């Protein structure tokens, strides 16, 4: 069965994300962050979690927090493709501007995507981050 059929292509996209995460210098961090993010969303809400990721991410590939940047950059194209966020908008700004119902829809979508990413990351990436 093609992965495209699984949850509207979500699994396929998540697999590509996890593959990209595996090739990072900070692959262990990538794995531990994607596993942690769903719980963060459940405890603090999507807006607060995205703001947290945006604040943490670093542009230097040698830094651990580069993994946050990769995650942040992986999330937006998927939400754009799903028609939930505009292409030209900043992700955090777009999400906090949503109405109640769309906000909960996007939350559900992001949770579902991270479920898959963390499953694949668990399988593809060895070792644990020292946290």
């Amino acid at each position, binding site marked *: 069965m093609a992965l495209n059929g699984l949850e509207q292509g979500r699994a396929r996209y998540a697999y590509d994300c996890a593959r990209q995460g595996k090739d990072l210098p900070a692959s262990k961090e990538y794995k531990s962050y994607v596993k942690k993010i769903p719980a963060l969303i459940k405890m603090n809400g999507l807006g607060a979690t995205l703001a947290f990721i945006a604040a943490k991410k670093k542009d230097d590939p040698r830094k651990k927090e580069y993994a946050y940047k990769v995650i942040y950059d992986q999330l937006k194209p998927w939400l754009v493709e799903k028609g939930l966020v505009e292409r030209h908008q900043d992700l955090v700004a777009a999400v906090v501007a949503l109405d109640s119902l769309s906000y909960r829809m996007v939350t559900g979508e992001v949770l579902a995507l991270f479920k898959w990413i963390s499953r694949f990351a668990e399988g593809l990436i060895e070792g644990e981050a*020292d946290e």
Partner: protein
Amino acid sequence: MFKQARPFFLMVETPLHAGCGSDLGVVDLPIQREKHTGIPKVEASGLKGCIREAFEDYDVVPGNRLPEPLVQEFPGLREKGKLREAINLAFGPEDGDLHAGALGFTDARLLLFPVRSMRGVFGWVTCPAIISKFIRELKMAGLEPPLQVPPAGAIPRGCGLLVNNGHVILEEYTFALQEDAACTNLAAWLARKLFPASGYEYWREKMQKDLVVLADDDCRDFVNLATEVITRTRIDAQTGTVARGALFTEEYLPQESVLYALALAAPVFHSSKGIFAAGEERAVLTFWQKGLPEFLQLGGNATIGKGIVRLKVLEEG
């Protein structure tokens, strides 16, 4: 086939974790949910086991005496071995599959879900789908509750959650709601049925005014996103710091949730009827109801005080 049914409520007094194994999802240890709706539930097998254990404790735990109403109803229970026999007839024998028990239970289904509110601390959220199912099951049990299903977006008269003209803020979401007669009636009925006559005045009053009937989808989102998630870890005794790889998350149904289930009774499936002289389903139900403790511990993590529920059988009228 069961001949009689009696609904009862389970009020969650401390967070309840009726788990369904581990998951590679949002939380490591999620709670049980209905497959087709995602609404939390408690499997009947767990419920039945807990209730059976409560009855067996009258036999084995020193100082745990049989409730007076139960002994008055069935004086035969004073004889040695009679309680054990009655438990086996009602719940089914412990070993072998000689005969089925005469008592059955349905899954405990969610009726009211507490959600943080900007005003009034929290409100109980429910929806037309849940209420109509609840009323249907009461009718299935042969009751005629004086209830109508309120429309989505309804609050009782005098609701204490309103922040300004007709708006309630739950978690971080705003809802426009309207007072509704069916909702007022439902809230008053539930407040009467759920709480004992004395000692729960605050809760009765709160439930009469702080019930919110949301649209089905909104309610479904809350029961999915607003459950309690607790992070746990282990401290390495050697170093006094967090042990590696020991971090995990657990999901709980928050305290103040309200669930309901049906107790079902069939005639006794055994030639010797024990204390149930005529072996009727009515006697079995009476045995269950009179012997039921007020509090029960359900689900996981009993040693950290989780899963204490208060039971209340639905009295007719």
